């Protein structure tokens, strides 16, 4: 039992627990707070995957910016407890649960039957390559992925202008 496996197990368990709380929480505020916790635990798993930069982006952009936007909108709309989240078993819930369980079963079987590959990429090699560091990822983005990067910046501008246009009652 090595430390990596223990950390993975703890983070995975906490991620699934808080993701379940997002779905089953009564009020949207507690859903949002559980989602923040989910993002933090996922960032821990990303660090285990040698993705330090993505983990930092996860905390800054997801847990920071996007969730603040969500909380702001929830409080702006002043939504109280949602009334329709009792423990009733409606037809749509049973169908939704069956669909999700079916998809999970298919995915797990597919992953199980995936051809086993010997992992040659070890930690020492990753450290030598600077794998997952901001410098190396930045170099990749600005050389191989420059056009998609610029397209994303345009997309964010369009999203910003569009949000103002849609949410404003009269311009």
């Amino acid at each position: 039992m090595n430390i990596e496996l223990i950390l993975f197990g703890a983070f995975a368990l906490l991620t699934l627990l808080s993701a379940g709380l997002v779905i089953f929480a009564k009020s949207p505020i507690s859903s949002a707070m559980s989602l923040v916790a989910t993002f933090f635990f996922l960032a821990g798993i990303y660090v285990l995957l040698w993705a330090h930069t993505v983990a930092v982006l996860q905390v800054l952009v997801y847990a920071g910016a996007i969730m603040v936007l969500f909380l702001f909108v929830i409080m702006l709309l002043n939504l109280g407890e949602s009334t329709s989240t009792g423990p009733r078993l409606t037809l749509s819930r049973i169908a939704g649960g069956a669909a999700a369980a079916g998809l999970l079963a298919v995915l797990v079987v597919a992953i199980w039957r995936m051809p086993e590959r010997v992992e040659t990429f070890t930690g020492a090699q990753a450290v030598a390559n600077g794998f997952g560091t901001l410098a190396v990822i930045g170099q990749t983005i600005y050389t191989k992925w420059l056009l998609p990067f610029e397209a994303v910046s345009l997309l964010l501008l369009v999203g910003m202008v569009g949000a103002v246009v849609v949410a404003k009652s009269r311009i």
Partner: protein
Amino acid sequence: MVPISYYLILAAALFCLGMFGVLIRRNALVVFMCVELMLNAANLTFLAFAKQNGDLTGHVSAFFVIAVAAAEASIGLAIVIAVFRSRGTVNIDEIRTMKH
């Protein structure tokens, strides 16, 4: 060393939880949050395969997914505000104008 399939199974479970939430919750904001869960499951898969192959393309894809999710959240929440202003509700059962 944790096998790559553990990460993939965690991502599959997270994706199915998000899908379950989208299917059963009726509050538009919570549905959006569940979509974010599904996007994160996709990111986790990208990063797991990036580690397996020692290739940075997965990291770049995760970066783009995060940027697109930010744009999606801003537009989606603006639409929710606009709908709430005209209908007074965010319950997606009561918003059925586009249902034939």
